[in-house]
């Protein structure tokens, strides 16, 4: 049984401009000790999805289920969730400076976390544990830095402190929401290394939310590619990188610079992600998709690709690459015709 299994999660918000559908039928699962990467552009719903599971989105309409060890988190009362948060599921957020309380010492915030779920831990013991945790995430002189305020830490140290906090009670699952986005590249690698080391040591499962495929390549076992509140493609890491099917995944990979790359230029995905209030009919990626054809006005379900059932893609394109190229040529040909007609009219 998966540690966390999310089925058909839907999250929407009422805004003055209409109903914003942030997550539209998302399903995924995380196994114990494994890392699930959720990748997508800003506004694809990846953060909303995980925060909703933990009951941290306010004023949202939610449906679906999120089974954590078989219990549906979405049906739990706030009180029940408070026992899960922190103790069973730790969370790490994007900007460690704004995520740590500026008025309290780092140690105080760690001790609060430890004692919030187990009052029997004495203050001195909790403090010793806080120092131990800071040492574990690689903060130098932890016995002294424990009394520092967050603003006295560097960016990387703050994120290490956040990791220490999320790991403090040895949770089964850690949700890391873009933990490296606000950090320098060199520090990113260190922070990821710390997380990987702790994962191996304690057998923690991790949901790694990121827009950075480099991070996914580094840590993820399985990957969900999200776009406009939906999973576009799911599969294990090598499938997503080397045998992907969905044009959106392909676009993400093509827009990525690589060391030793001999391409003259990068190929960003043209256009913008759609508004989540007025979604285009059919496939949400259709307006930006180089392969888009007639069938795409219907929204594709997640198809199983291949036989094993461990690779899914929401796309009408044939799985056979040669047939797929034909679709692209046809599409481009049609587009060329349209342009030709336009100019002839002028």
């Amino acid at each position: 049984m998966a540690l966390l299994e999310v089925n058909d999660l839907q999250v929407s918000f009422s805004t003055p401009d209409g109903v914003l559908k942030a997550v539209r039928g998302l399903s995924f699962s995380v196994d114990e000790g494994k890392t699930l990467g959720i990748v997508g552009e800003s506004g694809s719903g990846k953060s909303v999805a995980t925060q909703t599971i933990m009951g941290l989105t306010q004023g949202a309409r939610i449906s679906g289920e999120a089974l954590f060890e078989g219990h549906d988190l979405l049906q739990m009362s706030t009180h029940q969730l408070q026992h899960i948060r922190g103790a069973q599921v730790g969370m790490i957020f994007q900007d460690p400076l704004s995520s740590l309380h500026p008025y309290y010492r780092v140690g105080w915030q760690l001790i609060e976390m430890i004692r919030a779920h187990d009052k029997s831990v004495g203050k001195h013991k909790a403090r010793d544990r806080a120092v131990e945790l800071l040492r574990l995430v690689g903060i130098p002189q932890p016995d002294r830095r424990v009394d520092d305020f967050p603003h006295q830490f560097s960016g990387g140290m703050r994120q290490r402190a956040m990791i220490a906090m999320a790991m403090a009670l040895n949770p089964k699952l850690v949700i890391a929401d873009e933990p490296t986005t606000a950090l320098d590249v060199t520090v990113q690698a260190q922070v990821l290394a710390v997380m990987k080391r702790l994962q191996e040591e304690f057998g923690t499962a991790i949901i790694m939310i990121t827009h950075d495929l480099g991070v996914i390549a580094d840590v993820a076992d399985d990957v969900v590619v999200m776009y406009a509140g939906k999973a576009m493609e799911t599969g294990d890491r090598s499938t997503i990188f080397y045998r992907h099917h969905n044009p959106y995944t392909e676009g993400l990979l093509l827009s990525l610079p690589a060391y030793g790359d001999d391409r003259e230029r990068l190929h960003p995905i043209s256009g913008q992600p759609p508004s989540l209030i007025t979604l285009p009919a059919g496939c949400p990626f259709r307006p930006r998709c180089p392969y888009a054809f007639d069938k795409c006005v219907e929204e594709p379900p997640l198809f199983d690709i291949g036989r094993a059932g461990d690779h899914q893609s929401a796309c009408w394109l044939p799985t056979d690459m040669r047939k797929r190229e034909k679709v692209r040529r046809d599409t481009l040909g049609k587009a060329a015709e349209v342009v030709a007609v336009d100019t002839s009219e002028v």
Partner: protein
Amino acid sequence: MVRFLIRRVLLGIFVLWVVSMAVFYLFFGLNKSGPNAVASRICGKQCTTQQINAVKTRLHLNAPLPKQYWYFLFGYPGKDDPNGLPRNHGILHGDLGYSYVNQQSVNTTIKQSFPITLSLAVGSAVLWLAMGLASGILSAIRPRSLLDRTFTFLALFFYSMPTFVLGVLLLLLLFYQLTVHGVSWFPAGGYVNLTDNPAEWARHMLLPWFTLAAVTSAAYTRLTRGSMLDVLGEDYIRTARAKGLTERRVVFRHGLRAALTPIVTQFGIDLGTLLGGAIITEQVFNLPGLGFQAVRAITSNDLPIIIGVVVIATTAIVLANLVIDILYAVLDPRVRLH
């Protein structure tokens, strides 16, 4: 820290100096008949020019303005006359002089009035903080709820109500109407010393406290609500919830703690201002505090009293601001005093 304190105290003294000069200039410089008005007021309608001149000489009103200011600082020339009128020793010797009107020591007048103003200010401050914080926090926890809208309405209602209207209204309802119907819970006004009779003191202060608090707490409701709403949207509040803390702890230990800073600032300024006298409230409830004395002194051209009250009021505001800045550094570890 020490350098900060020295600088701020020097700055405070400079402010006092400028303010006292401004009052002198307003009193004499802009009003050429000032000395005559003072003298004729003191000796009455039937006064001869000779008598007026005698008064002016006694009060050194004929001296040029800078010289009079010098007297205010260092005292009148000459020696103490054990049989004559008391001599002003100057503010630098801690002597604020003597009333032009009744020759009473300004120091004594202020010593009698200040406790009244202090009782009014501190009592109403406790009330308005309690009301403003409680309603503001409740509003922020459930924005746009019925409770929030009710508090917003009440806040705007009292905020737009002048003190003299609310004070008189309370007197009409709670003093007059109740007394007419044989229930005398609230007195019409006046002051009883706290040390003489604490119960009576509180009974006399209750309506003035409420009047001042109702008008002021409205601003605190809005301020607390806004500040709390800002803070509750911060990332570290989400972190606090993600830690599995109870909502109460999230709101108070994490939210209110951070939302308090602007409220403390406003509170310091308001309390400092009030310590210079709540002119209207003191008038309505007949409390002879600093504001009451100031109004009386202005209507009778009694410069020494006016200056005395202004000096106390300015000192209170300067001190309040100093305390706010120190509190800032205590509240927010990122703030360094220098």
